[in-house]
């Protein structure tokens, strides 16, 4: 066990922090910025600069243009960029689709798609959930039928967040309706401007847009298939592990920053609360829980760095982070009384710029998206602790 970093990582981190601080000051993006076009443009530019420096692929194998270094580089970079509010299009795409394509994609896909994913030219929404296949993802019914050197896709997907802003969708379809339900699924990577695709916006309580996406006789070349036909479930299970890691890092940064901002707010607006022993104790408990999340993040990344699957640790991080989003935002609002309930734009200024009120609303969905916390706990128990499989 050791808790320090080798010199070269310290050096890398110093450079990453310098870049992040400088870029953050130049871009001027702060929490709550809602101009999505501006964010996308800045995100793309920063992504290309990071890719040019080779930083996004520090941990990738050399034969794929990476530097073959420890996964800790990726982790440290994500921490520095996230903490300093640097927009770089870090949604699910690169951290999840990239590694999955690397592992399961064809040589052609790796050569053509992966570099563009890294420089931000290709971005992906997820096409997993369906109206009748939520947590029970393996019940999905969207069909892909082979027709010569093409597949024809029909069906509909829901909760495809970002589909209105991304170039592609990472789409799970049923390719063998006769097989047992996990066995007949395949993954496709499909451009969203393909004829036959319709996107319908859905607005949710967090204030964000997500989408329902309809696929009507959508024809895609067979080269869009990722990995083996009917092996999609296995790829999804692998890709989801990476999604959980991303959720963990981003959640941690968001929680830590929100806590910091809240303390700064209290100091300026409610110094009386900082003199209240009961309030300080409740804040201390939140702080302990943020550190407990940090512990899970490091445990998870340590597994990845050792070349092992972080299944258990990633699920622990997802559960803890999202439960804490709810607990922390709720407690902070509670400390502030009625002012805590004000929304951004109210005549009574919203506490902490509306950040905790927004986090509370978002926490309603955070606990079940990306695999509901109840499913995660079952994964921890069965795959992590080896308990007998349940019903």
């Amino acid at each position, binding site marked *: 066990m050791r808790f320090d970093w080798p010199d070269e990582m310290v050096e890398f981190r110093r450079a990453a922090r310098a870049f992040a601080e400088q870029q953050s000051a130049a871009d001027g993006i702060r929490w709550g910025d809602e101009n999505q076009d501006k964010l996308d443009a800045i995100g793309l530019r920063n992504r290309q600069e990071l890719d040019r420096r080779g930083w996004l692929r520090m941990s990738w194998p050399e034969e794929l243009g990476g530097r073959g270094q420890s996964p800790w580089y990726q982790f440290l970079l994500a921490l520095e960029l996230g903490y300093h509010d640097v927009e770089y299009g870090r949604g699910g795409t690169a951290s999840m689709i990239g590694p999955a394509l690397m592992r399961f994609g064809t040589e052609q896909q790796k050569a053509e798609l992966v570099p563009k994913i890294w420089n931000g030219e290709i971005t992906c929404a997820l096409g997993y959930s369906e109206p009748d296949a939520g947590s029970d993802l393996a019940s999905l019914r969207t069909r892909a039928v082979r027709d010569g050197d093409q597949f024809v896709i029909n069906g509909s997907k829901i909760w495809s967040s970002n589909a209105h802003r991304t170039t592609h969708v990472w789409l799970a379809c049923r390719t063998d309706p006769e097989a047992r339900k996990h066995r007949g699924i395949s993954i496709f990577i499909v451009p969203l401007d393909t004829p036959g695709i319709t996107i319908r916006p859905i607005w949710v309580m967090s204030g964000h847009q997500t989408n329902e996406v309809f696929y009507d006789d959508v024809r895609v070349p067979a080269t869009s298939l990722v990995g083996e036909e009917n092996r999609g479930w296995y790829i999804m299970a692998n890709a989801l592990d990476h999604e959980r890691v991303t959720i963990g890092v981003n959640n941690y940064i968001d929680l830590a920053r929100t806590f910091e901002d809240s303390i700064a707010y209290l*100091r300026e607006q409610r110094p009386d609360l900082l003199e209240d022993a009961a309030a300080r104790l409740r804040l201390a408990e939140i702080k*302990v829980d943020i550190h407990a999340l940090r512990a899970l993040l490091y445990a998870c990344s340590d597994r990845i760095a050792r070349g092992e699957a972080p299944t258990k640790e990633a699920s622990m991080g997802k559960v803890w982070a999202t439960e804490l989003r709810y607990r922390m935002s709720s407690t902070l609002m509670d400390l502030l009384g009625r002012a805590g309930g004000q929304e951004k734009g109210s005549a009574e200024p919203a506490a902490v710029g509306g950040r905790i009120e927004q986090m509370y609303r978002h926490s309603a969905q955070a606990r079940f998206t990306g695999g509901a916390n109840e499913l995660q706990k079952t994964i921890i128990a069965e795959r992590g602790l080896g308990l007998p499989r349940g019903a």
Partner: protein
Amino acid sequence: MELGLTETQLMLKESLAKLLAANVGHDRLRQLQSAGVADDLLWSRLADGGWLALPVPESRGGGDATLMDIAVAVEEIARSAAVVPVAETYACAAAVGRYGTEEAQAAIGAGLANGSMSLTAAVLRGDGNDADGGGCVTHGRLTGRKRFVDYGQTCTHHLVTASGDGRQGVYLVRVAPGEVESEALANIGQTPQANVRYERAAAVHAGGPECAAELVRLSTLLCSVQLLAYADFALNLTVGYVSNRFQFGRPLGAFQAVQHHCADMATAVEQARFLIYEALWKLQHGTAQPDDIALAKAVASRTGVFVTMQAHQLHGGMGVTDEYPLHFYSRRAKERSVAWGSEHESLAVLAESVDAAVEWI
């Protein structure tokens, strides 16, 4: 950053596990508990194996182990629920080793290398960690009282916080009849503990205030390691139990309600492990702040109690019987959770500085 055990640590852990498996059984634990004594036989085996001198420098015939290595040893010993003052002895030896006087270092080095010494920290006068109160030294003789001294009635030497002869700090006292009188206490952990009265006891100045502070820090973190071991043991015991206990035609562990309890327990253990060893690492490198120690102890206390009590819930009747080992761990977890800074006391430390800047990344 590397969270796996080093080769040295793996070796320590494995050879200790072997020694403990051969010498600590649950029947023996029950006997020792009802007699209220420490395991002298195991202590002499540990002495023979050179384990007592683990924290002593090589130049004094010791094992020259780092604080991290010492903690791994304490964790393994705690996992067996052995009734020996290893954490106490290591905390004293390491505190004096790092900040103590030459004279005390030599005495402790020799005593632990030849196996004739067992050490415990005598710190508390009242209910807080009043490191400098409760003892007064005049012309090398210590007079005063200490409360809640772990293994106070069984150790050969006490490291006592006191002031006098113009010096504050810690004093090494040999337990001699007429000079040191112990009154045994009955605590929920069922491990030896005593209130102690020192009456003109011969006292060697062992270190200044910095040594006393280090003694408290070390005791707190090694106590946290014990809590981690109890929680980890209880989790593993529970996973084994619910995998093999059938009700309603299925193993208990196949029920989601049971699985989810186990997942929460495992999550708590994972968090505690990282935060405790991180604090130890910082202490080893001289960078630990009061908040780091308090964070580790707050999480250790809540984890030890939470996991052992959930273990009881999942075991049902079997878990609370005298024949089954779980009660050793749940009793001791609660006792350790309120020792060296309870969860509440630790949170109070954190609350004190809750608005200070934190290096989050």
